[in-house]
């Protein structure tokens, strides 16, 4: 008979093993799902990974999609560390994209790139930060659950973007399409070679990962964030100001998603367009990035690349095997569910039940009654 005992502290190797096991189970379940959809699971899997990791073009696309995933994933890692369930990276990304577009439309080509691009990123970060901080404020001031508020703001932002691109910001030069006019040349981010990798955003993402790691582990703010996430009552008792930490970490979290939004409009589309085109679900996939990374900002980089690859692969099988676009959401859901199930094996260790008497002792300690004995 197998039973599960709480384990004190999982090692890094345990974590890696469990995460890998969870990802493999997720992929296996996805293969099963492909089978049920009538696709050959082996060929579908091969298509996913060859499309994303096995060619120079695929790798370039993977890295391109990884940029917003890494940025948003780092932001969510910060928020989740403090037990703030920011599910609004999608909306915060759009807010960043909208703020940057607003600035871009105002600036046109009045400033040279070295001045204009940093301004663009600053505007995007401010846009995302403001939206997330709004949810933080609703939480600290009115105790509005942040899961619901950030999600509602996602929907509201999507409507706002649609309103803008169909209405006031609709570009006269776009022959009727719901796009804003294209960004002026100094505002368009440079790309690496023939790829679509807008490297300034990539550099920003990598720098953010390092900075966020330092923030969490080496600063007073990170200390208070970890304390608040670990035990909010004890943090308050130790004199920490939860409202302040909440507002700041939400702003940081949203700001990072906002940067991702700038990358999408200034690096990929060069204009603001439909919300679902600006972000193909990066904000939601970033939840998985944060979880795969174990809320570690540095690990968000490989985790973002992995998820970027899956998104590229998803596009590939859509085209080559005629699977619906929703397959990728299914795939993501299975991955995240498996990761959540895997957590169990980090907290509990399977062991063989000692066959003593049927009067198995109740674990002592807290002295809580164990109503039933198995």
């Amino acid at each position, binding site marked *: 008979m197998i039973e599960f005992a*709480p384990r004190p502290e999982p090692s890094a190797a345990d974590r890696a093993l469990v995460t890998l096991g969870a990802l493999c189970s997720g992929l296996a379940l996805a293969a099963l*799902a492909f089978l049920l*959809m009538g696709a050959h699971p082996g060929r579908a899997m091969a298509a996913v990974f060859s499309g994303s990791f096995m060619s120079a073009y695929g790798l370039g696309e993977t890295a391109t999609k990884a940029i917003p995933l890494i940025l948003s994933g780092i932001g969510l890692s910060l928020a989740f560390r403090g037990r703030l*369930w920011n*599910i609004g990276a999608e909306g915060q990304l759009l807010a960043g994209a909208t703020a940057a577009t607003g600035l871009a439309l105002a600036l046109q080509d009045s400033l040279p790139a070295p001045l204009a691009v940093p301004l663009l990123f600053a505007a995007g970060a401010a846009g995302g930060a403001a939206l997330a901080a709004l949810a933080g404020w*609703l939480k600290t001031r*009115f*105790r*509005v*659950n942040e*899961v*619901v*508020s950030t*999600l*509602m*703001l996602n*929907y*509201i932002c999507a*409507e*706002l973007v*649609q*309103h803008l691109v*169909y*209405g006031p910001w609709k570009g006269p030069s776009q022959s009727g399409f719901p796009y804003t006019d294209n960004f002026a040349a100094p505002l368009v981010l440079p790309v690496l070679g023939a790829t679509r990798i807008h490297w300034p955003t990539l550099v920003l993402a990598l720098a953010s990962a390092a900075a966020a790691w330092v923030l969490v582990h080496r600063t007073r703010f990170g200390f208070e964030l970890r304390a608040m996430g670990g035990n909010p009552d004890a943090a308050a008792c130790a004199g920490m100001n939860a409202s302040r930490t909440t507002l700041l970490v939400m702003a940081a979290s949203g700001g990072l998603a906002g940067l991702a939004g700038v990358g999408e409009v200034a690096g990929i589309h060069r204009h603001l367009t439909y919300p679902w085109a600006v972000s193909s679900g990066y904000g*939601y996939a970033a*939840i998985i990035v944060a*979880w795969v990374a174990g809320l570690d900002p540095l690990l968000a980089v490989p985790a973002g690349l992995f998820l970027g690859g899956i998104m590229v692969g998803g596009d590939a099988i859509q085209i080559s095997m005629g*699977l*619906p*676009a*929703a*397959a*990728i*959401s*299914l*795939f*993501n*859901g*299975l991955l*995240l*569910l498996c*990761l*959540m*199930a895997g*957590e*169990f094996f980090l*907290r509990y260790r399977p062991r063989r039940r000692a066959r003593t008497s049927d009067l198995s002792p*109740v*674990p002592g*300690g*807290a002295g*809580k*009654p*164990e*109503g*039933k004995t198995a």
Partner: protein
Amino acid sequence: MISGLITDTLSRTLGAATPLLLGTLGEIYAERSGVLNLGVEGMMAAGAVAGFGTAMSTGSPWAGLAAAAAAGAALALIHAFLSVTLKANQIVSGIALTMLGLGLSGVWGKPFVGAPLSARFSPVAVPLLSDLPVLGEALFRRDPVFYLALALAGGLAFVLHRTRWGMVLRTVGENPQAADSAGISVSGTRYACVTLGGALAGLAGGYLSLVYVPSWIEGMTAGRGWIIIGLTIFAGWEPWKAVLGALLFGGIDVTQYLFQDAVSPNFLKALPYAATLLVLMASARRSAGSAAAPAALAAPYRPGER
């Protein structure tokens, strides 16, 4: 003319309110037992497509409704397994469930996109009352699911407060230790409530694709699952207040038709989401005493552990 408008508005309001009511009732039961299930959006989507597909293939809207409930319940079981048995983080697990449900519905629903539904519910007319002017048509000549939802609201309120089952499930959500020491199965109760919640979310989705729209469009749940999470808080976890909340949001939904020429359609579409935020801000005032969240909400039960 005016009476026609009133009838039409009222009728649309009740139509929009019905899925919100069904979903909120389900979430109230799950949360009252101590499990937060944020997967409502996903369960609704799965229910919508399962209901539509089954109604198409069997020709029976009732079979479709049953399939919708079953699909929602099946997804909810995944969440129950993760959050009750594996004691996983319920917030992230619920979001994963939403992704899964939206993904499943998109994949399954592909063949049904744009298909017309022939198997429809015929309206049930309440004798005498349905002949009332203005109100009769809107209130008493409706699809049977509307009446079912109202009956469920009353029944579930009664079960929650006036029966042993209700007492047991409230205990599990408030103080699982006390329930455990009284010989109540905490896990069993939570599984049952989460599954019921899923079935009701599935019904809510089925109502969208079988009655309200009626057809299948990907993403047709349009955030209603999340509004339901907000409504659960707004209702203070009380089934009868869920009726009020659903009617309020049904009414907000209908403003889209009333004012579509006057305001940008995107603002009207954003209205329910903004209203959810406003309503939650207002709900914060009454947090103590009886309108507070179940004490053990979202906390896995770990007997005998520090």
